[in-house]
């Protein structure tokens, strides 16, 4: 595990708001030279803390007005059924996120669709036909907010 000082934390806070800041700009804001900022970013990347970029788009403006989270329970358990399900679910273009979880469901999926009829199509033709799918619960996303978390 990597140790962080206050400057690392400030750097992570800055990048979690603007992930594509140059090392020069980042350094200026934190009172570091460009090479010093670059070295710190490099170290955080090498430790696996920085895992690339997440681009937030206005999905509604791009024609994807509906985001739904699905909780999926598999009908049959066993390693084979998890593998078959995962292989098939990651290939669905409308499925953005697949998480294996422990609790009421086996998987959480984030699904994007153009509108409710389009969501119904994805649900019936793509999700309900996945291997091993049992119970499915849907919740329509109304708002989302990323928080800085414990580096804040």
């Amino acid at each position: 595990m990597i140790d962080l000082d206050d400057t690392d934390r400030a750097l992570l806070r800055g990048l979690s708001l603007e992930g594509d800041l140059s090392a020069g700009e980042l350094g200026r804001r934190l009172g570091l030279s460009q090479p010093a900022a670059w070295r710190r970013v490099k170290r955080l990347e090498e430790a696996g803390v920085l895992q690339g970029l997440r681009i937030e788009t206005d999905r509604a403006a791009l024609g994807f007005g509906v985001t739904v989270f699905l909780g999926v329970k598999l009908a049959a358990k066993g390693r084979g059924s998890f593998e078959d399900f995962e292989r098939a679910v990651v290939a669905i273009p409308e499925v953005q996120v697949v998480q294996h979880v422990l609790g009421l469901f086996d998987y959480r999926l984030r699904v994007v669709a153009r509108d409710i009829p389009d969501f119904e199509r994805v649900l019936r033709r793509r999700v309900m036909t996945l291997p091993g799918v049992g119970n499915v619960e849907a919740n329509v996303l109304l708002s989302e907010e990323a928080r800085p978390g414990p580096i804040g």
Partner: protein
Amino acid sequence: MLDDADRRILRHWLAEPGAPRGALAERAGVTPATLGRRLEKMRASGVIKAVRARIDWRALGYAVEVSLRFTLDKTNPRAFDEFIAAARGVPEVVGIETFLGRVDVRLNAVARDMGHWQEVYREKILGLPHISEVEALMLISTIKESEGLPL
């Protein structure tokens, strides 16, 4: 309004946000100068809202990640606002989402280990106002995480 070139650029960029600009321009079939201009325009118009670094909490020593699903006491008209305002004050909360469905609000929270999780859960989460029900899903692994859109 977006045209086909904008959509191609976005589709390729969302599929691989770390791709070098040159490669991205080539895949989208535009010149690097056009790519830069189009991205600039999409940011100014708000189609691209933000570009954030993806932080791996596990690499920072937060081994436990939990999705908490809440049903709130809706007899209180201020339940959502007060719950969300209080949740923003919990540093271990990394995301807040609201829903239409059986779940009202979801909090994504991290903790260093199960001992730390117990402390966060009992002392901070269960102290949030207007909770009527709470369910927890513990993250085992993330199989896919993408902002990709079938544009």
